[in-house]
């Protein structure tokens, strides 16, 4: 698997504010790479730099091994950066004609196809200014999909969409991932990222806190969830297995936290049974991305 994008030691300042501080990461081909971070963490700045609308103060990046971005390279990337940027007096079709004229991606028929895909076909001749926020976002997604580019850069793609729209975009991203497209997406919707991303980078005040595959990042420790008829007895036994245990009264479960890669479910089961506990539930839990995100970004 090759590397689509490699960022090396990127720095960016706005006056005294340091927006990016020594940011490095790489995006494997065919991955859905989520860039996570709270507001103001530098996500959009980072995407702006790799799409050549912002200049880094220091550092470099490589698309497909080539330094920086050439116009011909950008034409192959479908992008939605920050907000949908279109000519307000033009219709969806006319705006996509401009996208097509500049990027050279797609054909006239493709314009209709992408508009159908994002459910804007019926309103394709309405002026952009008459669209709702969600429709504007759909048009921006349509523009990024024009010509079926192999790489997409999407900044908060579900912004302004209703729950149905969010689910549709999620499915679209999964579909593109299955077709082998590489997608780089910034988002603060952790649940969305967890559902679709294969890799993530977590940014905080311009610094990369962590980067890697989603499984690597979330599975920093093993979480085993146990349940039994006598929950108090189970808690007592669990304390012998790990120093860190959590008792969930509502769910009537006990969670034990073990160092990463050390949990052996068969051994835990045997240990409990030998201590007179018959388990009704024994499962390895993945930590929620949200929990991991807060762990990493909270001081």
């Amino acid at each position, binding site marked *: 698997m090759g590397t689509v994008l490699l960022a090396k030691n990127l720095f960016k300042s706005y006056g005294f504010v340091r927006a990016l501080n020594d940011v490095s990461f790489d995006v494997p081909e065919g991955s859905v790479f989520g860039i996570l971070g709270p507001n103001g963490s530098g996500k959009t700045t980072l995407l*702006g730099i790799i*799409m*050549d*609308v*912002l*200049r880094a103060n220091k550092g470099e990046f490589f698309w497909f091994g080539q330094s920086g971005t050439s*116009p*011909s390279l*950008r*034409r192959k990337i479908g*992008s939605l*950066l*920050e*907000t949908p*940027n*279109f*000519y*307000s*007096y*033009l219709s969806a079709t*006319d705006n996509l*004609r*401009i*996208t097509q*004229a*500049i*990027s*050279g991606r797609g054909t006239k028929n493709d314009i209709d196809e992408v508009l159908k895909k994002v459910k804007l076909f019926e309103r394709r001749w309405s002026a952009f200014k008459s669209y709702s926020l969600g429709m504007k976002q759909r048009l921006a997604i349509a*523009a990024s999909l024009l010509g079926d580019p192999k790489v997409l850069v999407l900044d908060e793609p579900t912004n302004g969409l209703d729950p149905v729209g969010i689910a549709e975009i999620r499915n679209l991203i999964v579909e593109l991932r299955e077709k082998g497209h590489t997608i780089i997406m910034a988002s603060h919707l952790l649940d969305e990222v967890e559902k679709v991303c294969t890799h993530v980078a977590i940014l905080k005040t311009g610094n990369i806190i962590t980067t890697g595959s989603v499984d690597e990042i979330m599975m920093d420790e093993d979480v085993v969830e146990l349940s039994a008829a006598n929950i108090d007895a189970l808690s007592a036994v669990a304390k012998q297995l790990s120093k860190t245990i959590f008792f969930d009264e509502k769910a009537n479960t006990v969670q034990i936290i073990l160092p990463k890669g050390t949990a052996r479910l068969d051994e835990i089961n045997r240990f409990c049974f030998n201590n007179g506990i018959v388990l009704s539930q024994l499962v390895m839990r993945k930590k929620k991305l949200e929990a991991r995100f807060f762990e990493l970004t909270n001081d």
Partner: protein
Amino acid sequence: MTALVRTEWLKMRKYNAFWWIMGITALSYPGINYIFYMVYDNLTNQPSRASQFAKMAIGNPFTFPEVWHTVAYFSSWFVFIPAVVVIMFVTNEYTFKTHRQNIIDGWSRGQFVSSKFIDVLIVSFIITILYFAVSLVTGVSNQERLIQNTWGQSKYILLFALQTFSQLSIAFLVGFLVRKAFLALGIFLFYYIVFEPIVTGVLKVYGNDMGRFMPLEISDRMTPVPGFLGKIDIVAYNKSLAAIDQHIILTIILTACIWLLCYRINAKRDLK
């Protein structure tokens, strides 16, 4: 190049303000020349001796070949009308943030400025065609002789085109730097209509005519007052005719500097 022209055409063909302002310009250019023609006609077509003397003294500036110069001079007063559309073209890109999107979609930063250069070129071309048509119609309708020197002063077609392009380039620069439509329009119109004429006028009297080097005045002096008005002060008129070549060079240098500056700024700055 063709791709840039095509893309710019896609942007402007359904932009109502563009067609409205072109329409206003199409009315104002013949209008202003017709008004001056009527003034001339009223002055010279009276049965009085004074009127006949005036006609003999100033001739008919609305016949060939003088008409090219006369119409160029009067029409050049109204370059601020198409300047509005040039400013709107560039500030729209900032308002809609399409100056970023065009780059993201695959233009180089240089191509973006080139696309705006093409806009200014297209507007200048339309204005020049309009001037050409007004001059031609005025000249033909005032034809007094069967054999006439129709193209004698046709160099004013090129001078008018250069002056229009130069002044619209200044309008573009203001829009490019200011980015906000109404602010840019306000600054340009104030500068065009109030500030520079006052400064030039004051410098003419007190500053050894250094106002001739003001940005708009540099190109204004390529189309000096027409001959019939020049007869009021023949020395000054001859001097202004002699200075045309110098002003052509200055205009070309200034216009080139404006565009080089725009290319340079756009290559360096963050597109926010």
